[in-house]
């Protein structure tokens, strides 16, 4: 069966290029995927980028931090049938969005002091869907290799990828791990974090820090905060924990729940 090749762009805003790197890490599978895909833009892998074409799918990595980021995102959007927020920075603003509750100037002065001079016109790091419409989200820091493959192969077949809507706990139990919240009272955010990593950190006996971001379909962060409070975690640490990979999450429910205990 002759299949039309998908025209794909892999764009990068402000991020560490790790999500693109994990695409390259597909190695042998990448060679199989390119039989069905034309990589028109892939900043990390080539200089021969063709930004002027129309794309079936644009993967966009990184947070929207500079005016150029925003322009780039809009350009990609205009030319693409589907836009995919690739990785936590694009989905949730990334760790660099962490201090989103203070203005950018204050953040800069706190870190670099009053004498520092910055000429770059950048600001707070925002998620991609704060500036353009996003059709799909690939979670993670970076997303798992199988996320890329599943996404592209389903699209190539003419169906679509199903979103992850279950928490890390599900995979943690399926793996037969003990629970670090119950056993050690650790602030594991697995219960409210998007699964798909096969509970990598808890499987190494380390609490989940939420790098795949909070579940989009349901928000149980208030209950999570109550659990942590019950383990005697101070309120500021609870809030930090929840903001780490989702700086723009509305935590008013959390704050209210904590006020009422």
């Amino acid at each position, binding site marked *: 069966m002759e299949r039309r090749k998908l025209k794909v762009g892999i764009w990068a805003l402000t991020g560490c290029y790790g999500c693109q790197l994990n695409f390259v890490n597909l190695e042998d599978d990448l060679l199989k995927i390119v*039989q069905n895909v034309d990589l028109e833009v892939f900043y990390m892998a080539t200089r021969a980028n063709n930004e002027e074409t129309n794309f079936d799918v644009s993967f966009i990595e990184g947070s929207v931090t500079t005016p150029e980021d925003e322009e780039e995102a809009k350009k990609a959007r205009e030319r693409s049938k589907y836009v995919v927020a690739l990785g936590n920075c694009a989905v949730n603003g990334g760790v660099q969005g962490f201090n989103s509750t203070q203005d950018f100037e204050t953040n800069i002065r706190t870190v670099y002091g009053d004498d520092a001079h910055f000429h770059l016109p950048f600001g707070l790091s925002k998620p991609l869907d704060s500036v353009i419409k996003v059709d799909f989200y690939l979670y993670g820091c970076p997303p798992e290799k199988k996320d890329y493959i599943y996404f592209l192969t389903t699209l*190539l077949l003419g169906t679509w990828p199903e979103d992850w809507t279950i928490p890390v*706990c599900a995979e943690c139990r399926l793996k037969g791990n003990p629970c670090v919240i119950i056993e050690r009272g650790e602030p594991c955010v697995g*219960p409210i974090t998007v699964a798909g990593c096969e509970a990598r950190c808890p499987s190494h006996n380390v609490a989940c820090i939420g790098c795949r971001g909070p579940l989009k379909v*349901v928000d149980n962060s*208030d209950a999570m905060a*109550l*659990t942590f409070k019950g383990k005697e975690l101070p309120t500021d640490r609870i809030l930090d924990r929840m903001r780490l990979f989702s700086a723009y999450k509305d935590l008013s429910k959390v704050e209210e*729940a904590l006020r009422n205990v």
Partner: protein
Amino acid sequence: MRYTKLRKENFHEFLRVLERYGKVYAPHRISEKFYDFREMRDPNDVVTEYPRTVMPPKKFFFEPLSELFKVGLRDFSYSTPEEDIQPFVIFGVHAYDIKGLMILDSVYMEPGLEEKQYAVRRQKALIVGISDMPDQYNFSNVRNADWVDEGFDLFLHPIEEGWLIRVGSPTGHKIIDDNSQLFHGTTLKDIDDFKEHEKRRQLSFPMCMSLSDVRYVLEVNWNNPIWEEEAKRCLGCGNCTMTCPTCRCYEVWDEPDVELSSASRFRRWDSCQFHDHGLVAGGENFREHKVDRFRHRYNCKNSYVKALHCDFCVGCGRCTAFCPAGISYMGIITHLMEAKVHED
């Protein structure tokens, strides 16, 4: 029933003997507070006293994640994974978990509707039960699941000299007969030990009540505000159902291979506590709110197993012991039973 005795000094040898009947899985301590069934490598690592394993034995029969079938995308072929299931032994299963398996049997082995993966494994498995000493979460007595008359090949009860064994199947008889050097006749002292242990055990159950009306109590309390209040603390994490010995929900999805030559359908345990569990075509969700999902579990677990005249819940206490939010299943049920809904 046939009884025999296994002396302490023969216990490890007995575990080794079981290996002749297949790979042995047994309770192991996997962390400070958690136990789970794991493949036995060294009989010294097997624990005989444990409150409950984190995963129920259901994982051996209804696999947490599996490929159901594959379809060729070029030749439209259809194939199911080749399975060569060898006999295996699950050692150290508590009575409530054996009852749990019998409940699963009533669903997955219903004549004419057998679930292949489950049935094949069930036929290949040898079950060696072991008596448990209940902790604060165990209410299997209230569920009539603290004792089993069937569903095992051998069942071990502790006595001073070692173990008193009940023999529950033809395979059980064969193990005893083929290895008679390991076993001894029971003495009157053994019988006293056994009775003493059972008495101590029965007195250790934290609850003593009847739950025979519970599903109706839940039904008439459908709109009780307790549900809303208690659901607030629920994380929707699904630990309660993932660890439940009788939960059976699963999710299926399809994945093409990277060359687009085939696609496989996979199955993974699902939980009614997840938001999308009630999502159906058209985007409707019949359990849209957390309280709907929270309440549902109580109703489902307390519904009636017609084939066995019992409830789906066997009282193992896992859903309470393994709830990260510390929500007590029986706590909520007793709360509902006692709280007045009518104000004078």
